[in-house]
């Protein structure tokens, strides 16, 4: 970057306005629900009112008699097509439409296709389903009880609700450290079930052309290529006859990675009726049935020395996966990347056991900017560090500073086998403390405590492992986690970049154009980014887990460099010198020792299409392709400080400040990075203070609308205070690390730690999210309640 600036070339990295915003701010975006096709029909899903019940009969006669209904599809219909069940992204199965039992409230039971959306919805009320209610498994902690009802009796021989056991670290070594430690602390910590609640709910328009045999599906998906392959596998359709288009997406957050039954129903509906079928779920359907996040019941333990050296961390987790194991994560990692629970600290040992269980709740488990369970891991360790600080009577910032990895320890191999690429953690935390005025805040807190006022200061420091991932280790349903990029250079020097990742608001059309611009010395406005259509983009696994910039951004830089190398050969012909005599100055290939003799990429691109006699090594254009297989993950980090005030009489929290110092390596578009951080900070405020999907004892979902499931507003969000440090990733072509989920990961522990810090005069060491006024008041009383169950 510095080099290009020195040579007066366009400084391609910087706060460029987002190219996509022109259409969004003018209302010209095109989302799935904007797709209208001739003769298009509309689908609606009948959902189970019960969390657990046997279906004894389904009578669809009255619905079929509705004058505007074209088809009613049930599990029996699908069973005839061998489509009643589909594979999940975790190698489990999930009912598309229930045949035997319903296993969560909101589960898909029947699908009506009608001439309009209202008729489809009306016809749902004409379907009569007889249910025989069964006891529901609601509390994950009871799921493995001997007398717990077996949810997945569809699987032969299954006699319990156990899904998997997974372990990482070294149990014996950790036990040794704990036995020998001067101080140990333990705490039960729940990260309750939450939901990403994107602005746009999920939906699909399926159009099966009987003449050509081609199926086109417009979908709310973060991973169009993976979906196409899965449709081919699930439905037995030839993959080259499937086109998945992901148009503009109104927020994904991981909730649009998997395939939902509604998509499959829309496809079947189109095949059955011969017409395009649109299905778009409503808000309650989205909250009740699509991918939830978290639901991790954790017990954390820390071993330390009396002077505050953190020696070991041990964790056991009960993971509630709902009725079907539908988490989206690399095959070898059933608990995702939870292994980074060792945090940003230099430990002697670590150990972790995770047990996954079925419950009568919606499936999912990886969503809401979690980076494959990193959100849970970071929350656990950052809460536990505060628990230790409480026990030791130490300042939590000082305790962290004392234990953070040092710059000279990178690349650092953690006790669970993760190789952190780079960082300067002490400098990062010091900067956050400086921005916050940490010592002054502590002084103010002391004064206010003397006056009986509750003020809290919360610190969190996180390291994420993102950019999955090396295909040798990471795949989803056998598909390695690499991403392709094609770069086409038009004769006039304009470029079209085709990428496999799909933006849901992250600004790919701008950021990726800037990467190309930076490599080729052309304006970012001259680079069109094409994505989201499997017919016009290269294969790749899509956007989630903060992987777009680490993986696809790398692919983009690599393919642009390939173009640049081809351009060098052409330039050598133009300048009649050897390619070896050419040097790149950020905008031109020029003759070494004769800088006036040089050619820009647009000049070279035209020449490549002209009558110029081309040397060996180029066929006649500059276009290039690549597939990027990441050598390792990237490790963004953050130091966050939150300041709150708590009203002891009501339990109300006022969030005063939130300081976030992120290190995501090289920033391509700092404005977009800051936007990502802003959104994630608001997410964290939501999770820490108000959001939860709880269930009552019958398994009724208590978070099924925005009246019950709260999104934070501007009133709860302070003016964010951001800072940055930059330690480039050494193995990424442009040193970027990814930032899409950083703030969502880092902010919940900062906010919770601040609230708990405020409650210190009451001897409070922990309370589970969400820290609603009721929960805070009860915590002050010494009687916190379970936030994952109905409040009684």
């Amino acid at each position, binding site marked *: 970057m510095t080099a290009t600036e020195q040579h007066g070339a366009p400084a391609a990295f910087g706060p460029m306005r987002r190219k996509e915003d022109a259409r969004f701010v003018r209302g010209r975006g095109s*989302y*799935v*629900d904007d797709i209208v096709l001739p003769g298009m029909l509309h689908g609606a899903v009948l959902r189970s009112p019960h969390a657990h019940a046997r279906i004894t009969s389904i009578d669809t006669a009255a619905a079929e008699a509705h004058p505007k209904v074209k088809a009613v599809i049930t599990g029996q219909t699908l069973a005839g097509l061998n489509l009643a069940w589909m594979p999940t992204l975790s190698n489990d199965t999930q009912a598309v439409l229930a045949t035997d039992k319903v296993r969560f409230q909101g589960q898909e039971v029947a699908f009506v296709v009608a001439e309009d*959306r*209202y008729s489809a*919805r*009306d016809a749902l009320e004409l379907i009569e389903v007889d249910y025989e209610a069964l006891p529901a498994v609601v509390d994950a902690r009871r799921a493995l009880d001997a007398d717990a009802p077996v949810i997945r009796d569809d699987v032969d021989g299954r006699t319990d609700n156990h899904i998997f056991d997974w372990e990482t670290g070294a149990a014996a070594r950790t036990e040794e450290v704990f036995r020998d430690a001067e101080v140990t602390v333990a705490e039960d910590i729940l990260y309750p079930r939450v939901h990403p609640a994107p*602005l*746009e*709910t999920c*939906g699909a328009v399926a159009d099966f052309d009987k003449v050509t045999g081609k199926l086109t599906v417009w979908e709310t998906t973060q991973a169009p290529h993976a979906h196409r392959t899965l449709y081919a596998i699930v439905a037995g359709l030839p993959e080259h006859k499937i086109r998945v288009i992901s148009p503009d997406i*109104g927020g994904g957050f991981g909730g649009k990675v998997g395939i939902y039954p509604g998509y499959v129903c829309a496809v079947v509906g189109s095949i059955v009726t011969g017409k395009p079928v649109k299905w*778009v*779920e*409503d*808000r*309650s359907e*989205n909250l009740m049935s699509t991918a939830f996040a978290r639901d991790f019941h954790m017990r954390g333990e820390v071993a330390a020395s009396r002077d505050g050296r953190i020696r070991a961390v041990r964790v056991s987790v009960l993971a509630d996966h709902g009725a079907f194991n539908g988490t989206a994560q690399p095959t070898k990692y059933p608990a995702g990347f939870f292994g980074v629970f060792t945090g940003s600290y230099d430990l002697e040992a670590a150990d972790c056991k995770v047990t996954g269980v079925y419950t009568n709740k919606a499936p999912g488990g990886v969503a809401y900017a979690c980076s494959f369970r990193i959100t849970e891991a970071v929350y656990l360790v950052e809460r536990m560090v505060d628990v230790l600080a409480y026990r030791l009577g130490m300042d939590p910032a000082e305790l962290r500073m004392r234990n953070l990895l040092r710059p000279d320890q990178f690349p650092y191999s953690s006790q669970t086998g993760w190789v952190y690429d780079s960082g300067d953690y002490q400098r990062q935390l010091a900067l956050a403390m400086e921005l916050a005025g940490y010592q002054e805040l502590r002084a103010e807190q002391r004064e206010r405590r003397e006056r009986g006022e509750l003020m809290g200061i919360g610190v969190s420091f996180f390291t994420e492992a993102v950019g999955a991932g090396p295909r040798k280790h990471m795949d989803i349903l056998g598909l390695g986690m690499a991403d392709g990029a094609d770069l086409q250079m038009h004769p006039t020097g304009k470029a079209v970049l085709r990428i496999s990742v799909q933006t849901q608001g992250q600004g790919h059309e701008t950021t990726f154009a800037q990467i190309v611009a930076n490599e080729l010395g052309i304006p970012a406005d001259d680079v069109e980014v094409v994505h989201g259509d499997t017919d016009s983009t290269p294969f790749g696994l899509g956007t989630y887990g903060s992987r777009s910039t680490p993986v696809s951004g790398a692919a983009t830089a690599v393919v642009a460099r390939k173009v640049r190398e081809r351009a060098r050969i052409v330039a050598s012909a133009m300048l009649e010198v050897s390619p070896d005599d050419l040097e790149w100055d950020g905008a031109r290939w020029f003759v070494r020792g004769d800088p006036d003799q040089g050619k820009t990429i647009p000049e070279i691109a035209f020449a490549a299409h002209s009558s110029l006699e081309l040397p060996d090594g180029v066929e006649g254009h500059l276009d290039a392709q690549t597939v990027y297989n990441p050598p390792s993950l990237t490790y963004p980090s953050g130091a966050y400080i939150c300041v709150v005030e708590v009203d002891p*009489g*009501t*339990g*109300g929290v006022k969030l005063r400040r939130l300081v976030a110092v992120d290190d995501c390596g090289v920033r391509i578009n700092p404005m977009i990075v800051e936007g990502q951080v802003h959104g994630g900070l608001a997410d964290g405020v939501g999770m820490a*203070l*108000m959001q939860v999907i*709880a269930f009552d004892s019958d398994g009724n979902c*208590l*978070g099924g*609308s925005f*009246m*019950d499931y*709260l*999104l*934070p*507003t501007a*009133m*709860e969000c302070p003016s964010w205070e951001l800072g940055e440090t930059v330690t480039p990733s050494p193995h990424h072509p442009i040193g970027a690390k990814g930032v899409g989920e950083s703030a969502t990961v880092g902010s919940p522990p900062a906010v919770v730690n601040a609230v708990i810090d405020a409650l210190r005069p009451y001897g409070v060491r922990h309370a589970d999210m969400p820290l*609603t*006024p*009721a929960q805070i*008041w*009860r915590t002050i009383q010494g009687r916190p*309640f379970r936030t994952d169950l*109905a*409040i*009684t």
Partner: protein
Amino acid sequence: MMPGMQVPSHVEYERATSLEHALTLLAGPDARALAGGHSLIPMMKLRLAAPELLVDINGLTELSFIRLDGDELRIGALTRHADLLGSAVAGEYFPILTDAERVIADPVVRNWGTIGGSLCQADPSEDLPAAFAALRATVVIRGAGGVRTVPVREFHVGPYETVVGPGELLTEVRVPVLPRSSSAHLKVHRRAGDWPVAAAGAVLRLGGPAAAPVVEAAGIGLTAVGAPHFVAAEAEEFLRGRPADEESFAAAGAIAADHCRPVADQRGPEDYKRHLAAELTARALRQAAARALGEA
């Protein structure tokens, strides 16, 4: 269509061109008046409500007013929340209304939702019924048979139920102006715009010397805690004639808490809501007294 939109069942719609027209239409089977629609339409989309006819009264601009008339403040039923929030005269005489409006929903809802609709929705967690009950307001109801007035404290007969009958329309709220009085409303919610976990409004008329004021009359409204008719009658009675001081207010709060019947839900457990009834009642009384004495 908005992504994620829930669709109601079939409903007829008619726009009332006059009050008489509205009353005629509302006399039909299962007709509902549509004003701001911020409660009714979500209920219809969730199919919790399925009226046969919506009578749109938004054209009846004569029902939108706020004016001082003798010793009463008269507020038209079609007055928007935002208008009441912005009303200087309402704010001067009844800060409880400004306090309440400031925490009702969000600006978009307040720009369209109406005072009459808020009272008629009779949501047991609504703020305005408690505020008007504390003020001992009266409502005016029109029907084909004429006009009747009903004290707000008799207007709500149960959750989502009022005394407004078929063919009738709430047209106005009248609030008595009291000398040497003031008021306040306080609410605890999980997030701005959410329904209250609990809220309390207080109106105090003070007598006695400024140095030792005495409560001549008190009005206490409670919402979301199962207070009958949104009122803490026993606490009001207790306060009459007592010193307007911290001890009286705390005791009144405790009495209010004893007599309400909160129900646990995801906003909070029963004991917490009862605690809030006491805490918020005492705080609202304290603030109302300070305002009446010109201290706040």
